[in-house]
């Protein structure tokens, strides 16, 4: 279990993190989303000990992280980087050994991950001779080669081709299923929605929403889509429980105060009263919409 507990960090007069708190459980894939500059990268850097926090603590299995336990975290920094003139295989073995693996373990893991990620033919090549896509795969291998118990990946999907995205997704699920806490940040919200067990939405250095995507959906406003072709404009005004209406999705989208039988029934009756009803369904917001709402709730503040 990886716990980020009340982490704050300032850079000069800029507040980068303001009491950032969340927990990634074992066997959980946690999506970390937020605008650029919201504090995702800073959080991850602090978790890896690359930056020092001004306040707060990062714990792994209940104990504050130290140099030894940090080596159990597989890390993919946002700023990708490898030794350009070092061969792929040598480099992976080196990085694994730096994280405390024995020479034999490092060799075995480097061979296995290069094989798995389709880089077996390129082991002897210098990293700088690889295509960008292949360099990304080496970067992923670098995060995995020390057999980490935890994965912290900053934008692991950026710059990947579709095949590599599939490989990456598969690897993340696999590590999750093996019981590792896995956290990654991404701007690709459909991907986060598809992959993650839980999502944390970060804004201006703190978490503004957190939970399983389904929970976040339930917590967000109840909407129904009604397609009643003969309904006049404003037909739903005044129906009890209807907060807002707008035209979208090939019909009228009604935002309801609650999802009770009475409210839903009242709306359906009002729709039937206008003539035939072609569609009447509960509308599930996408993660992107939840994200926009979460960020818009704080619209008065300037997004960092």
């Amino acid at each position: 279990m990886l716990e980020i507990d009340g982490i704050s960090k300032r850079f000069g007069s800029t507040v980068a993190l303001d009491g950032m708190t969340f927990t990634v459980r074992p066997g959980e894939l946690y999506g970390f989303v937020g605008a650029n500059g919201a504090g995702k990268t800073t959080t991850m850097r602090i978790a890896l000990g690359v930056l020092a926090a001004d306040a707060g603590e990062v714990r792994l299995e209940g104990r504050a992280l130290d140099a030894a336990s940090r080596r159990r975290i597989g890390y993919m920094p946002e700023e990708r980087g490898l030794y350009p003139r070092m061969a792929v295989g040598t480099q992976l073995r080196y990085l694994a050994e730096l994280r405390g693996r024995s020479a034999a373990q490092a060799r075995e893991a480097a061979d296995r991950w290069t094989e798995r990620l389709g880089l077996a033919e390129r082991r002897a090549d210098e990293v700088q001779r690889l295509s960008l896509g292949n360099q990304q795969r080496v970067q992923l291998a670098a995060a995995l080669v020390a057999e980490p118990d935890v994965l912290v990946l900053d934008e692991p999907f950026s710059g990947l081709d579709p095949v590599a995205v599939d490989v990456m997704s598969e690897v993340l699920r696999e590590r999750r299923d093996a019981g590792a806490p896995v956290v990654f940040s991404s701007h690709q919200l459909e991907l986060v929605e598809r992959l993650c067990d839980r999502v944390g939405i970060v804004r201006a250095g703190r978490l503004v929403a957190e939970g399983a995507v389904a929970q976040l959906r339930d917590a967000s406003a109840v909407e129904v889509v009604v397609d009643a072709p003969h309904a006049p404009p404003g037909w739903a005004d005044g129906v009890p429980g209807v907060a807002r209406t707008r035209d979208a999705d090939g019909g009228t989208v009604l935002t309801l105060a609650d999802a009770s039988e009475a409210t839903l029934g009242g709306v359906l009756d009002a729709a039937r009263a206008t003539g035939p009803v072609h569609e009447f369904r509960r509308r599930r917001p996408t993660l992107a919409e939840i994200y926009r709402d979460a960020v818009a709730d704080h619209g008065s503040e300037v997004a960092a």
Partner: protein
Amino acid sequence: MTGALRPVLLIARREFASRVRGRAFVVGTLVVLVLLGVYAAVIATIASGDDTARVGVTGPAVALAGPLERAAPTEGLTLTVVPQPDVATGEAAVRAGDLDALVGGEPARPRVVVASEPDADLERVIVDATTTVARDGFLVARGVDPAALDAALAESGPVVVSLEPPDPQAGRRLGLGLAGAFLLFFSIQTYGAMVAQGVVEEKASRVVEIVLSSVRPWQLLLGKVLGLGAVGLLQLVVLGGAGLAVAGAAGVLAPGPGLVSTLVSVVVWYLLGFALYATVFAAAGSLVSRQEDTQSVLSPITITVLLGFVVGFNLLTSDPRGTAITVISLLPPFSPLFMPARIALGVAPVGQVVLAFVLTIAFTAVVLALGGRIYANSVLRTGARVSLREALGRGRG
């Protein structure tokens, strides 16, 4: 090889392997070796190229043959006297270059025919010979035996009492000391700059973030300094060894206890000097993020070292016992360059060596603390150059 030290050794091993296998190291070392060989060959030719001269004698001047041959060794000249049948034949031989000079006519006042200008040494030999002939004639005319005068003169002369006997090896020691100082300067500059480049390369390629998520900054810094220091030491040993082999083969240098202690002190001072300078270079390198900016932060350091080296080198050759070089060799940043040279020269009292050693270690410790702090604070900062004030500020430890 456990705990905090294993990463340091891994890093050192990587630095060592990636440099020694690199083409630059192999080619660079070979080029320096070839230059060293050429230099040694030139020196050997000059040293072994004894002055030789062929002088023709003709007519009454044949009497000069003996005095000429006796005078030649005092001027370091190997002289061959070749009697000529007549002046015309002799002049032709001079013109053809077979003879350096033709001496003819009256022995006390001969005519010397040369191609253009007489060789200075040869001219002195001829003057010696004519003086001897004139003196002997004068003495014989007055009934004095020239040999008796020579015997009397040979008995005369001062007896010099040296309070400090001169070192017969002084020249060789100076050569060894200067060569050592030069090699140290060369190694420290080259490999110190390499440390800075390595630091900047890691920053520029961003790999430093991955490395620093596995190890502490001091481990990375120490590993780098150790690894590159070992490469520098290897090159120092290769070059120094080749130099000694050449010198030994040329008979310039005889192995002895003085030689061994000089070599040991050069290596010890190299290690100390390298730790000192490499840390400074690493800290400087960590302030910038691009290779293009490296020079701007390194120049102040390299120029300081260069100036110190040039001044110290001149003092060492002109006045190795002087106050100025003594002071410079006691100042920590320059001790590693000049103390081994002064030790080799045998002009450094033990007290001074110990003082310089202690001062350098203390100074290096301060530099390591400050440099490590600058490095840790700056190495993850990309973009604009980090100011020294920021770099020295509160770090992550």
